[in-house]
């Protein structure tokens, strides 16, 4: 009797155990099947990030795109580089063959018929000059030509003051219907160095979009235009350089998220030399002909690169207070590092900007 009861107990126990293990097995199988399904559905059409660098407009141009295949990415990037290459031919200050050189050679003589791109970029430059009250002046050429940051030559004061009369954007004659640009005074020079790279980033981004790219980033040196989201669904992330970095490696002061926006930075550390402790850099104040003194670095964010490029220069020249006012007036976002190294930001980017602790 006792034995029987024991056997019965064992039997019952085993059957219950089998039942439990079966339930566990089925649960596990279902879990694995679900896991597999999730893994497979993660990449229904595998999108990857492609990157290419070219040297154009005397600087480094890097394009990133998200695309389904390398062929699609290559095709679109080739068109984007081509668009920049075309602008390089039209707008190069140093090439005799560019349309810009033709306009400058004919200063005070006659107007020059130009392509729609050249007309548009000069039009935008005049707009930036007007909006900034001449803090950005696209006719800075006679002054910028006096400086050489490779040979570290500081021009003499007499030369600087003599050329000041030639710096005045109001003396540009734009006949939009005829697509003709004229400079009214002999010796005037348009220098698109503070706007052409941003404009090129815009045009390259448009070329990418026209060739089926939904998400990409074009960086013409520090003038960056980004659109769409990356393949991981996140916005593009751009680092803002520390204007007083110590080492040789890129030191980042802050990072900012960018989606369907452009960013440009003007800094006194890009091209400069120091004489007797005084820093002479390439961002000249059109009103004095000498480097602007109020800031170390200015980053501006807006919808297009043509605006961020020109207005980062304008804000730099205006200095932190007036610069902030201009950004507010235009509805742009930005970050200013003033001459003491103090950081000022517009309220709109508080949540998008992240400062690095170690800088």
């Amino acid at each position, binding site marked *: 009797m006792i034995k029987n009861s024991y056997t019965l107990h064992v039997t019952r126990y085993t059957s219950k155990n089998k039942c439990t293990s079966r339930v566990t097995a089925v649960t596990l*199988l279902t879990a694995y099947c679900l896991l*597999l399904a999730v893994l497979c559905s993660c990449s229904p059409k595998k999108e990857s990030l492609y990157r*290419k*660098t070219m040297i154009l407009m005397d600087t480094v141009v890097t394009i*990133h795109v998200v695309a389904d295949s390398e062929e699609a990415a290559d095709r679109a990037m080739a068109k984007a580089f081509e668009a920049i290459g075309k602008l390089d031919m039209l707008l190069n200050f140093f090439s005799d063959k560019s349309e810009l050189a033709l306009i400058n050679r004919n200063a005070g003589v006659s107007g020059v018929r130009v392509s729609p791109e050249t007309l548009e970029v000069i039009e935008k430059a005049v707009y930036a000059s007007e909006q900034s009250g001449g803090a950005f002046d696209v006719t800075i050429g006679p002054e910028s030509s006096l400086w050489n940051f490779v040979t570290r030559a500081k021009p003499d004061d007499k030369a600087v003051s003599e050329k000041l009369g030639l710096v005045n954007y109001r003396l540009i004659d734009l006949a939009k219907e005829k697509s003709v640009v004229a400079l009214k005074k002999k010796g005037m020079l348009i220098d698109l160095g503070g706007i052409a790279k941003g404009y090129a980033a815009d045009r390259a981004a448009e070329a990418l979009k026209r060739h089926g790219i939904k998400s990409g980033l074009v960086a013409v040196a*520090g003038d960056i235009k980004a659109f769409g989201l990356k393949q991981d669904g996140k916005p593009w992330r*751009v*680092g803002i350089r520390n204007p007083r970095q110590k080492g040789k490696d*890129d030191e980042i002061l802050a990072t900012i998220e960018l989606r369907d926006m452009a960013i440009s930075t003007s800094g006194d550390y890009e091209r400069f030399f120091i004489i007797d402790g005084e820093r002479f850099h390439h961002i000249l104040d059109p009103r004095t002909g000498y480097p602007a003194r109020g800031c170390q670095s200015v980053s501006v964010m807006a919808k297009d690169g043509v605006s961020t490029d020109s207005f980062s220069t304008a804000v730099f020249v205006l200095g932190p207070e007036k610069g902030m006012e201009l950004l507010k007036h235009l509805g742009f976002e930005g970050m200013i590092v003033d001459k003491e190294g103090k950081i000022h930001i517009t309220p709109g980017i508080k949540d998008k900007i992240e400062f690095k602790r170690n800088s």
Partner: protein
Amino acid sequence: MSLKETVNGTTLGDRILFILLLIVSFIGIFFMKEVLPQPRDVTIEVEGKLTHRYPLDTDRRVEVGSPFGHLTLEIKDRKARVTGASCPNKLCELQGWISRGVIICLPGRITVTVGGSEEPKDRKVDAITG
């Protein structure tokens, strides 16, 4: 219990489970390969086209030429530098040794990139302005 007995003792469910586990493990290996950092290397591009790729942990000297100029690249102790360049201002030589980043020869249209796949994730940015 021998192997044969063990196999005989399994149910169909056990076997399916075993095969599924194997498949999941292989998929795991494949995914890890994608996620884990690859060994770092030095890439050289001329006019945007990849011309050379070398591992960073092998010391060597390389001559790089383009229709616009040439330079000599030295890789040593997981660092790279340009030693001889045909351009007049030699900015690429002045940059010295770098362990991560880019050396650019503008006149020669040559770009040397020292791979940055070991970059910490929080510092990772797509581009730098300024």
